[in-house]
């Protein structure tokens, strides 16, 4: 049967090629918006105004980036965003670890109901708690500081962090915990020395998810801050629109710079990111 190919011509399968071409077209369509911003950010305002936004430039114009990177307001926005994102990411994961351990390893009567209540917090529109939180922080004199944003993101992160940590801790064999307890370890040591070192992937998932969400958030800084000194980068983008009304290139550069941290995290930790998204969605 060596001459199969000549006697019975192998049936040409058009599917892989068709699918590949279809995917290429769709990918190009999907990338077009982002590509447009990238292009606009390396062009002069004049070129864009003349309708030359969507062509590949022959000269890369970096002034837009200089304008953004040397703008002291942008520094302020970035610093504020980091001051919010890092502590809130850390705190929400820490609280999720504590609660997740109890729900996974120390269940009690009614713990399932409590777990369900905590997890369902993930699903509610934030508008529902907007007014009372505004009143609370107004009463505490914390409006126009970063504290309410950090606290609220910490609290709103508890559902997803508890959910993922509980699922992960549940997969850690009980025998390990019991052995540690017999050796004289207490519950805290079981959590920090046994369970946590085995759960690094879950921590990576949560760190990427929480960092991205908090960095990208717009609503809470909009509600809780008023002065330009306290604004985060996503509000900054909107504020600077006024300053750079027709300077589309500068706006493009600013959008890209503001997205850089989350883009980098996404590209390097994509695996964790996607896992978190699907786990959070499906196990919910």
């Amino acid at each position, binding site marked *: 049967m060596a001459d199969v190919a000549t006697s019975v011509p192998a049936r040409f399968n058009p599917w892989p090629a068709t*699918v590949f071409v279809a995917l290429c077209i769709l990918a190009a369509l999907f990338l077009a918006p982002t590509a447009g911003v990238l292009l606009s950010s390396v062009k002069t305002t004049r070129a864009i105004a003349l309708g030359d936004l969507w062509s590949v430039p022959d000269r890369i114009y970096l002034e837009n980036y200089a304008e953004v990177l040397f703008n002291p307001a942008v520094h302020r926005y970035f610093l504020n965003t980091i001051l919010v994102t890092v502590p809130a990411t850390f705190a929400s994961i820490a609280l999720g670890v504590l609660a997740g351990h109890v729900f996974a390893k120390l269940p009690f009567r009614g713990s399932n109901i409590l777990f369900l209540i905590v997890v369902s917090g993930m699903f509610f529109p934030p508008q529902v708690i907007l*007014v009372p939180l505004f009143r609370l922080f107004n009463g505490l004199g914390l409006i126009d500081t970063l504290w309410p944003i950090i606290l609220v993101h910490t609290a709103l992160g508890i559902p997803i962090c508890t959910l993922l940590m509980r699922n992960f801790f549940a997969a850690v064999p009980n025998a390990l915990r019991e052995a540690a307890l017999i050796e004289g370890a207490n519950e805290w040591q079981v959590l920090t020395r046994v369970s946590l070192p085995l759960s690094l992937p879950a921590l990576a998932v949560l760190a990427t998810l929480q960092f991205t969400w908090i960095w990208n958030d717009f609503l809470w800084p909009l509600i809780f801050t008023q002065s330009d000194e306290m604004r985060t980068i996503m509000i900054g983008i909107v504020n600077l629109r006024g300053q750079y009304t027709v300077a589309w290139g500068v706006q493009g550069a600013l959008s890209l710079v503001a997205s850089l941290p989350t883009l980098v995290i996404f590209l390097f930790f994509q695996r964790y990111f996607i896992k978190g998204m699907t786990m959070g969605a499906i196990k919910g």
Partner: protein
Amino acid sequence: MESQNRLWRVLLLALPILVFSVLVIWPLLSSFYYSFTNWNGFNRDYEFLGLRNFAKIWTDRLFFDAIVNTTIWMAAALVLPTLTGLFLALLLDRQVRGARIFKTVFYLPICLSAIVVGQIWIWIYQPDWGLLNTFVKLAGNPDFNYAWLARPDSALFAVIVAWSWQQTGLSMVIYLAGLTSIPSEMLEVCEIEGATVWQRIWRVVIPLLTPSTVVVVALSMINSLKGFDILYIMTGGGPFNSSDTLAMHMYNESFKKYLMGYGSAISVVLFLIALTIIGVYFRQLRKVDEIYG
């Protein structure tokens, strides 16, 4: 041993439950309380209005518009990303060359903030040199400068497209995860039995993807109900409230007009809608669990 466990439960749960109760549960409950008042956001005092805020809802034309817009917004945000996500997942499930790169491309928008996504699409819809009108001009309509975001007829749909662009990746990965759980033997049997590609997809793959569909649908609805940032930056609810959704309307009444009592009443409606969706979701999830194990 058990008494020690009890101690540890209290110690470990105290902080998370305290934070969650004070900053999520309590505000949720007091939203109901404030919905009966006329608090204006600044004064310490307020009066009780009874059900007057809810009575106002019935006569508020803007609220009615917001309900209509929210319905359109949710329906479209449900159908578009779900279908495109399913389509992409089906294409990518066959081992295509470069599947990983394609997945990254389709998934990338999800890591952008809604503000940046809105900004990007404002440029696409820009009347004079935006990408969309550039294409229309190239297609032989040189004077075309329709302002997509400034016309009441198109504003909401223009934002829906931008939103779908961002959300498609999410439904795609959920469907991809669902596809991996379909045993390949089953598809091989279909092929041997002579089923065409379409029959395989319609009769076997899509029915078997029901659990994923339930998740995607619920998630899309919940996410679109939360959707606020992208509308805020692209249209601000306008023009003439043509893209004003419930979340937008609630924000405007509370933080633009400082009618926080009335805003709370709107948020109570929002809460009840979310609760209904979640209730149906959990029920469907249980049903799916029973059928598909």
